[in-house]
């Protein structure tokens, strides 16, 4: 196996160039997918036989919840790569992805609560999924707060990496214990997401929205990472040249 691409990926200059080429494609894909998913989900998908039209919140709630969980796992993977292979770019990815992950968790919680009102008759129910999401939000807050509290950039990245890895090991345990707790105290709550066999017209827009959210995350992450890389490398000649080129483009 040829590992040169892996080490190349660690080079800020190479990353900056290649990400500049990917970014427009990701952005276009995100906008298209989300637009199609929105119109399809809001206007064309059939209403749910039990919940009526309020179920259309699913097209935001589920992609956000998916993303919230996968971004946390991504933080831990980036942290591991940063700790083991000392790849600086992984540190950048960890710190730049965390706020977006927290926002996704927030969206999942908020849409879950709004959805809860017509479904359960109240905004907040201590349902297993919502509770796990809330705990995930706290985990994100921890990573972000730790990163902000440590002034040394490298130490902050490493500390966040350790915390994210400990958190990821804990997430399955937390999820399992919360589900157990939930079944003990509220047997057979009506779960909003688990539905028997959704028809094609319902799950296809959902799939499109999920893909769109992933593309959007990719685009935002690249956007944030590129700025951070440019700031970190401001003293190098390629970054100076890039800054000058950007300034000439926008006078």
């Amino acid at each position, binding site marked *: 196996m040829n590992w040169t691409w892996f080490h190349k990926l660690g080079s800020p200059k190479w990353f900056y160039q290649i990400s500049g080429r990917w970014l427009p494609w990701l952005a276009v894909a995100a906008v298209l997918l989300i637009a199609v998913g929105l119109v399809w989900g809001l206007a064309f998908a059939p209403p749910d036989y039990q919940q009526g039209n309020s179920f259309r919140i699913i097209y935001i709630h589920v992609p956000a919840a998916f993303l919230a969980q996968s971004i946390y796992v991504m933080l831990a993977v980036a942290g591991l790569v940063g700790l083991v292979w000392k790849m600086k770019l992984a540190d950048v990815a960890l710190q730049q992805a965390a706020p977006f992950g927290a926002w996704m968790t927030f969206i999942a919680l908020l849409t879950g609560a709004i959805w809860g009102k017509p479904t359960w008759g109240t905004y907040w129910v201590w349902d297993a999924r919502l509770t796990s999401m809330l705990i995930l939000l706290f985990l994100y807050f921890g990573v972000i707060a*730790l990163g902000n509290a440590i002034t040394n950039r490298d130490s902050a990245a490493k500390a966040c990496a*350790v915390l994210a890895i400990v958190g990821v090991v*804990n997430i399955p345990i937390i999820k399992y214990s919360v589900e157990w707790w939930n079944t003990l105290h509220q047997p057979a709550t009506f779960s909003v997401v688990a539905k028997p066999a959704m028809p094609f017209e319902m799950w296809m827009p959902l799939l499109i929205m999920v893909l769109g959210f992933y593309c959007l995350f990719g685009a935002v992450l690249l956007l944030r990472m590129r700025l951070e890389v440019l700031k970190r490398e401001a003293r190098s000649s390629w970054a100076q040249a890039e800054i000058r080129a950007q300034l000439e483009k926008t006078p």
Partner: protein
Amino acid sequence: MSGVFFLLMRREARLLFRRPAELANPLVFFSIVIALFPLAVGPEKQLLQTLSPGLIWVAALLAVLLSLDGLFRSDFEDGSLEQWVLSSHPLPLLVLAKVLAHWLFSGLALVLLAPLLALMLGLPVRCLPVLLLSLLLGTPVLSLLGAVGAALTVGLKRGGLLLALLILPLYIPVLILGSGALQASLQGLPTSGYLLWLASLAALAVTLTPFAIGAGLTISVAE
């Protein structure tokens, strides 16, 4: 190798016993928090009994967290941690000894105090074995997980609140299983499932967290 493990435990024991006030503080905190609840919700016996499993566990969890804030602070300030990091002995082993020593003297005292406070809250005597066993299995996990946060925040000036923010979400499984066991025993249901889960969490924490604590200390020392 195991020699240094017990030497460190003995050293920690000496240090703790030469400043006994620090051992007593978490216990006093634990008692005060427990005493606050009847004052807040009223002295009605039935209500307190239903709430007691949760109250005891929340109070114990906060007391452990409070005692952990200073776990590595003095070692960090007087340069001991630098010596640990540069030692030829594996750092995870050293931190495991340190945390276990801390638990042995502060956590265990908490466990022994808990039945008394539980009786004051109206928990029936038949629930005490489960209370003791669940705390015995759960508090080491709390100490070890908290030590990860303490290691990561030891270099920070205002680490205390941050430590709580980092660690409390990770405490949730222990809280659920511990108070769940107690509630089950209160209702006369079998508790072995909860206790077995707590035991496996304890085994997991003893084997995995020392590495995270060691990594955290190395990072804090490097700053």
